[in-house]
């Protein structure tokens, strides 16, 4: 019965959302329950001093009329406020990323080439520097930043609560949000540990509306991660090369 109500509310929410999206100037209509779940998940991450997780990520690639989904795995180690180590693996593009509070390093594993940039600040600041100055985007940046809620809730035009659903055996709560540029959905573990289990981002302004899908696993919020975890040590035979500033449109 409760589920029915939830579903009804969700459907109403969706139709409201559709109405809201139809009229551009409509103020945002974020269902308080959806916001509550989002905040709970973000707070859980924000209050963790150090954590690790794994994710399997599917990224749509649209070429002409073909939409194909590529797959990679991500492993992340994060320590507040200024340490990150990530590894992403796929057959051609395995990469490592380290930020030790003073330097970030990107390792191109297949080519065994790496570049480093001296930088300081919080995880958020380094993500921005990497993005803005070097054109490096981060997979799953949304669960890396020190306080995910402000950026997640920013620019929302609508948000709906879609109720309970099980993701790979884990009971979750499904919420969906919309901004001008992207639609995104989050499945949050329905437990005292409201952690993200699944994330879908739809780049709706792009042709073919490609999606980015991540399934999270192996969350560990009680990790004790030493400084050493975040310090890059070049693999045998690796050569250092320059990281050039992002090329911009001219």
């Amino acid at each position: 019965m409760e589920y029915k109500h939830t579903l009804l509310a969700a459907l109403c929410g969706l139709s409201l959302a559709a109405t809201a999206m139809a009229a551009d100037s409509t103020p945002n209509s974020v269902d308080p329950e959806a916001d509550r779940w989002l905040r709970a998940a973000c707070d859980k991450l924000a209050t963790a001093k150090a954590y690790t997780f794994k994710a399997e990520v599917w990224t749509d690639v649209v070429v002409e009329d073909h939409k194909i989904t590529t797959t990679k795995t991500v492993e992340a180690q994060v320590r507040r406020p200024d340490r990150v180590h990530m590894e992403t693996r796929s057959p051609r593009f395995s990469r490592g990323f380290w930020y030790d509070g003073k330097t970030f390093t990107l390792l191109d594993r297949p080519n065994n080439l790496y570049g480093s940039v001296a930088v300081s600040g919080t995880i958020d600041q380094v993500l921005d520097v990497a993005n803005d100055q070097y054109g490096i985007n981060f997979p799953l940046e949304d669960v890396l930043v020190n306080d995910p809620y402000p950026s997640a809730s920013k620019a929302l035009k609508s948000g709906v609560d879609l109720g309970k659903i099980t993701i790979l055996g884990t009971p979750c709560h499904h919420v969906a949000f919309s901004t001008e540029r992207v639609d995104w959905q989050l499945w949050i573990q329905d437990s005292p540990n409201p952690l993200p289990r699944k994330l879908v981002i739809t780049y709706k302004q792009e042709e073919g509306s490609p999606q980015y899908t991540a399934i999270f696993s192996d969350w560990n919020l009680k990790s004790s991660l030493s400084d050493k975890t975040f310090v890059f040590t070049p693999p045998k035979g690796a050569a250092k090369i320059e990281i050039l500033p992002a090329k911009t449109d001219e």
Partner: protein
Amino acid sequence: MKNQQLSVRQVRQVFFAVLLTLTLAIPAFGADRKGVRSSNRSPAPAAARSANVGANRNVNVNQNQNRNVNVNQNVNRNVNVNQNVNVNRHVDVDVDVHSHGSYHSGGHFWGGFAAGLVIGAVITSPPPNPQPIVIQNTTYIVSEGVYYQQQGTGYVVVNPPIGVTVQAVPPGATQVTVNGQVYFLANGIHYQPVMQNGVTVYTTVKL
């Protein structure tokens, strides 16, 4: 029976072409998609650089307009060039849009080099999505990051000119170190690897 075989082959060819293009388009870490956070940062100081569809589309359309001028001079393949707008747009979501229009290969990874095309190889039909460009009064046709010159009715694979950026080094390139800097040497040309926009690319240099 013959027809059936033909159609299977055609399907294979199409599939291969798509596969190749997609292989080239797979985003790397670093050249990953933006998350919700970055997608909504606006107006980003680097808005022109962001993985914003509109921006990318405009850039590439402009590039292709420029190229079309050359296309008309050299080859009658406008249709294919225009198709490439789409390919580039998606490849470059995080990578290729940042390239210079006129001096860049088009941003494909593992292009003809990976297909085993060596310098001096001649192909009799036009390579896929040819992009004619003129560098220092020499006309090149660039396809999937490989530089060609027209020779009669064929296309011969040539060394890229100095100062251009390619996405892969030729097969058989050897790694050398000169004054502490690593290069890849192939056919007498030094390729300096650098990271740009999260991926490794190679600039041809004169040492």
